[in-house]
């Protein structure tokens, strides 16, 4: 099966310092891939380069086999390659309704009524009573949910989620978990960068470990953390598995 999204020797340097690469990576349609790695291992840079928010120093990005390395970020989104952000998740100074309406416009919907907005919020478990609230006034967890809802309105083929569980309480984390399971059920692929292993690993078909800007290891969720080199890179100790 041809990959939906793949990269070939993708790398990014900042002022001559290598932050990423070379990275060969692939995601198949409907597959959920987790990316783990210590801070500074290049995960977010990888997201930025793959989604077109940064130009790679070298290497290529492919979408269904076609080279999209030079394609602008907004065009990649229209192809179905959608991402979320760690911090800037929503449009804070506008209402939740207008946040969702913007995504509906981008999907080409003519109907921007509350009835059209409702399914988007419902998909991520965000209550409809928040419609009139300023998005910036939502709780952190609700902002995360709204941010994901915006991306999912576009009906992406694949969604790249940057630390979707960061800063969430247990209830919000449960809502995000449910939403991610629905993603998988609906055949939408996902690449999830996350530190919270207990939440991430059960959701993933495959886990990729980044260290020093490169892929250190990849494999099934249940196997990957047993590897000594992964534990050494991620936790900074080599003997933890044996203890």
């Amino acid at each position, binding site marked *: 099966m041809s990959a939906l999204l793949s990269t070939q020797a993708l790398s990014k340097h900042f002022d001559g310092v290598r932050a990423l690469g070379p990275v060969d990576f692939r995601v198949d349609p409907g597959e959920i891939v987790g990316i783990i790695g210590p801070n500074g291992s290049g995960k977010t840079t990888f997201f930025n380069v793959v989604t077109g*928010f940064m130009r790679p120093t070298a290497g290529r990005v492919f979408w269904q086999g076609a080279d999209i390395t030079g394609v*602008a*970020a*907004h065009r990649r989104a229209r192809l179905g390659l959608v*991402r979320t952000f760690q911090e800037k998740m929503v*449009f804070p100074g506008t209402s939740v309704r207008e946040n969702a309406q*913007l995504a509906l*416009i*981008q999907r080409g919907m003519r109907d921007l009524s509350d009835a059209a907005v409702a399914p988007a919020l419902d998909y991520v478990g965000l209550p409809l009573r928040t419609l009139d609230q300023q998005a910036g006034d939502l709780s952190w967890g609700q902002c995360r949910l709204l941010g994901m809802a915006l*991306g999912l309105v576009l009906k992406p083929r694949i969604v790249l989620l940057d630390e979707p569980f960061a800063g969430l309480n247990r209830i919000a984390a449960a809502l995000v978990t449910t939403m991610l399971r629905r993603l998988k059920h609906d055949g939408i692929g996902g690449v999830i960068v996350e530190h919270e292993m207990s939440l991430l690993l059960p959701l993933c078909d495959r886990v990729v470990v980044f260290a020093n800007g490169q892929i250190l290891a990849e494999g099934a969720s249940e196997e990957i953390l047993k590897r000594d080199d992964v534990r050494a890179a991620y936790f900074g100790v080599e003997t933890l598995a044996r203890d």
Partner: protein
Amino acid sequence: MLSRIAPYLGVIALGGFALLLPQAQLSGQVMSLATGAVIYSIAAAGLGFLWGQSGQLTLAHSSVFGIGAYAAAVGAKHFGLDFVTAFPWSIGLSLVAGALIALPSLRTSGHYFVILTFAVGEVITVIEMRLESITGGVNGITALPGAQTLFGLRIGGRTDYYLVVVGFAVVVFLILLALIRSRWGILLRGMRENEDLSRSLGVNVALHRLIAFALAGAVAGLAGHLYMYFVKSIAPESFTSHLSIIFLLVVLLGGKTFLLGPIIGSVVYVFVPEFLGLSPVRSQIAFGVILVIMILLAPGGLMSLPGRAMARLRARKKTA
């Protein structure tokens, strides 16, 4: 249905009120001030739309306003164009200038972009000074096109011109209102709030920003055209960055996210010094102080005050 058309009716009602003003037998000086205030409000509305809706600020707005004025003046003096036939030139050239000013924003943003627009504005002023054979250089152009007609009606005196300017203002504000409430308005506000997120949702930020600048330029050009036919004599020094700061002050005074903010701002800016009898220097000091107070106490502008007061009242009722 009524809630959808109410804002449009509000603009038309305000325009109707402004059109009735000459019936109050006001002095010629007051009518001139009112005409100036309406022209300033149109120009500032362009900046307010750009800044308030798309989040982009430019300090070259006065230069684009000037391009509209120069197009009208050069058209009248060298090409025999009149009020109507010069219009496409004033608006078209300003529209192009507005879009060109936006081009650097594709490579830079924030404060750096604002400084860059300041530099662009200064360059335009220098060009206006150097193109002596066309612009009249430092001395500018005095165009005396004579009495004009619009839709077959003669624009005779001061009052007639005031009515024409108000008519244009109503049309401009109605168009801007429709754009603010349109799907495009939603996209612009998204870009204002979070450019990266907009891009990640497939919004072509560069294109929409370019269009927003072009639109603001066209509105400034229209105001510049009206200004030229009002004062009939223009010079480069009339369109320096100082005027951009005045437009900015007008927008801030009224409230940058409010369509009618520039009207309130320009009325305060034009009439308050006159009624208080302030000299130009004193009025500048007064507006400097007002600007600081506004930024500190009411960053949303005068138009935001009723809403804030209502919110406070509601909060008090809740806690009581």
